[in-house]
């Protein structure tokens, strides 16, 4: 019986060790820093990764589609900091001037080559209610 308990204990420990090992390895190999644009620009050369995730606004007027519209260049801004972005692929529905986007990709030679471009819906859910002059009076 004692022997049996020991074997179960070993099994449980083994599963735990393998799981934690696997989690640790996967994390360290897949981790992508989520940084501010200014951090990315200032920290050049100090990052061990070349993949980053960033958030910001699409600068008005900066969107330039390629001729076949399958790629797009734009500038993402966050406060004072600006970052040129190149993205290949169809842009999401909400991608327009001034929308909030999250991008992920490689930073090379001053340009972020994004392979993932997400627009944030939060702003859409929480629009400001403003008086609407054209509306007919409603109420109960």
């Amino acid at each position, binding site marked *: 019986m004692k022997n049996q308990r020991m074997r179960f204990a070993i099994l449980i420990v083994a599963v735990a060790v393998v799981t934690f090992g696997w989690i640790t390895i*996967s994390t360290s190999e897949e981790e992508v*820093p989520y940084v501010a644009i200014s951090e990315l620009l200032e920290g050049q050369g100090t990052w061990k990764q070349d993949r980053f995730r960033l958030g910001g606004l699409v600068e008005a007027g900066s969107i330039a589609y390629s*001729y076949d519209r399958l790629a797009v260049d734009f500038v993402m801004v966050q406060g004072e900091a600006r970052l040129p972005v190149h993205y290949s692929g169809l842009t999401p529905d909400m991608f327009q001037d001034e929308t909030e986007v999250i991008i992920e990709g490689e930073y090379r030679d001053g340009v972020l080559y994004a392979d993932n471009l997400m627009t944030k819906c939060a702003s859409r*859910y929480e629009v400001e*209610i403003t008086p609407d*002059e054209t509306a007919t009076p409603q109420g109960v």
Partner: protein
Amino acid sequence: MALLGSTTLQLSLAFCGLAFVLNAMYLANRDGRFFVGAQRGLIASSLLILIATFSLVHQLMVSNFSVEYVARYSSAATPTMYKFAGLWAGMEGSLLFWLAILGIYVILVNYLNRARNRSLMPIVNVVMAIVMLFFLMVTIFFENPFTMLPEGIRMQVRGMGLNPLLQHPVMLIHPPMLYLGYVGFVVPFAFAVAALTTRRLDATWVRSTRRWTLLPWLFLAIGIILGGRWAYVELGWGGYWAWDPVENASFLPWLTGTAYLHSVIIQEKKNMLRLWNVILIMATFTLTIFGTYLTRSGILSSVHAFAGTELGIWFFGFVMLIIVACVILVLMRKDELASRNRLESFTSRESGFLFNNMIFVALALAVLWGTMFPILSEAVRGTKITVGSPYFDRITTPIGLILLLMIGIGPLLAWRRTSIGTMRRNFTLPMGAAIVVAAVCMLLGIHRIYPVLAIALVAFVLTGIVVEVVRGIGARRRTSGESSLRAFLNMVDKNRSRYGGAIVHLGVLLMFVGFVGKAFTVEQDTTLRTGESTHLQDYVFTLEKHYTVERSNHTALIADIAVSRADKLVTVLKPEKRVYTDQNNQPNSEVAIYSKPLEDLYALVGGENPESGSVVLKIMINPLVQMVWLGGIILTIGTIVAIWPSRTDRRLREKRLA
């Protein structure tokens, strides 16, 4: 009417507080009148919440835009059914809806236990009252859905309308299902706490809550699958799962809940793992609240995120309170929860369940770790580090395959110890099937290790289930001489948990087949002029024409894409790009999908290129996606089979009533 809503909510808070106090008094001096009073107070509180909910639905239906919530999430032009969906479109309504579901559970639990579990019910009601109090306070003081707009702008406001993305039939079912699942776990949790407090630690509370656990588990599963379905048909990236924090938040309690459903079987049969079961159900409930916190606090960036609010801190506090209370309670009863029985052998059904539990918990930890990593890394290293789908795919694929293996092995093991003879008898066929299928895959040119393993394991499990069922039928036929079908039906009815479980396993198996298909998805982004074609695998996609249509609340750009294979027309896909004129010209894509049993043809139109007169398209071939939805349906059927009372149950019930 809006006044009715906020008044009933406040009254409900008063009744709920009263119920809590009366319950405490009952526990102090055991005067039955206090218990009855508390019970009535809690039910009154629940009924008042339901009235408040109907009141909000009414406001939405009549489009009373003086109520801020209605103005935000509805408009006069919103179709009626989506006016109703406005109830869960925003934070305030969602919280009220959460409360309404809790109210329904409270009423049902009290009704169904009117003559049962007398010693547990007072504590069960205390726990449910605390949860209700918390949500009532949050709703009333921070996120009141009945807040009126200031007088000045009230008359000039016209509703903003429901986000077009949410205007989809699935969105009428997906959120209620998730909520029914989330909230439902409060019942087994409350029973666990009651069992601990009253020291009734045998399997009674586990048996009493079997259905109360299966039901929310099923709702959560349906909710998650429908969420995937919605993403697939509405979001236009061709997938159904992205490991988004909010998705993970719903997946986590489902994982621990699944582990719990398996491990309670050992408690019922062997009176073992009692401590473990208590911990699992506590973790599951905590994760449901934690999930609400994750979604609502905005601490994680997610495409789902509602704007962050001050609510986060309150939810965080509540989660901490639950954890601390649970830990103290478990520590106090630690010795009494210790098992008297021991596992006898590795090759037993018990250790199969144990191992399955370890894997589920490992999976849950891996997902939790990845979801929380941005927050943890920021706290420790000062930089927010994210891990995305690559991390989750990488880590969950092998764990998922081990689970698949366990689905196959577990039911084939005997209780206590499996003899070598039984092993050989039970495993030969499934092993053989797995090897043959793996070989066929290799011959067909599939060399990627995970897909081949997955398909082989699916064959293994499937053969195992068939062997189990065929043997069961054979045994019944020999003893009773029934026909095969009759024998099958009787066998299922005699042991609904086991065979319901087998059907659920079959559903999960099909879903795994669907996940394997994901590895073989092909896609192409392309620009086509009218008449031009492109090839994807052996299909030819030809743009026949594109045109614009004006509809009541949107303008749609439609592309007609003819898809043919070997010169035979398969279908014409008509994806649309809509611009909603009543929504500040918000664009929204309508995906076109043609589903065949084994693959989906998927097309999306990205827009028109004004310079060249061409249309930008995304086309995909998604193999086996249908299996995911079909698997979900079978999983649902299996769970219903397991929940449904057997003939013996029904007879016992009739006898009791007579």
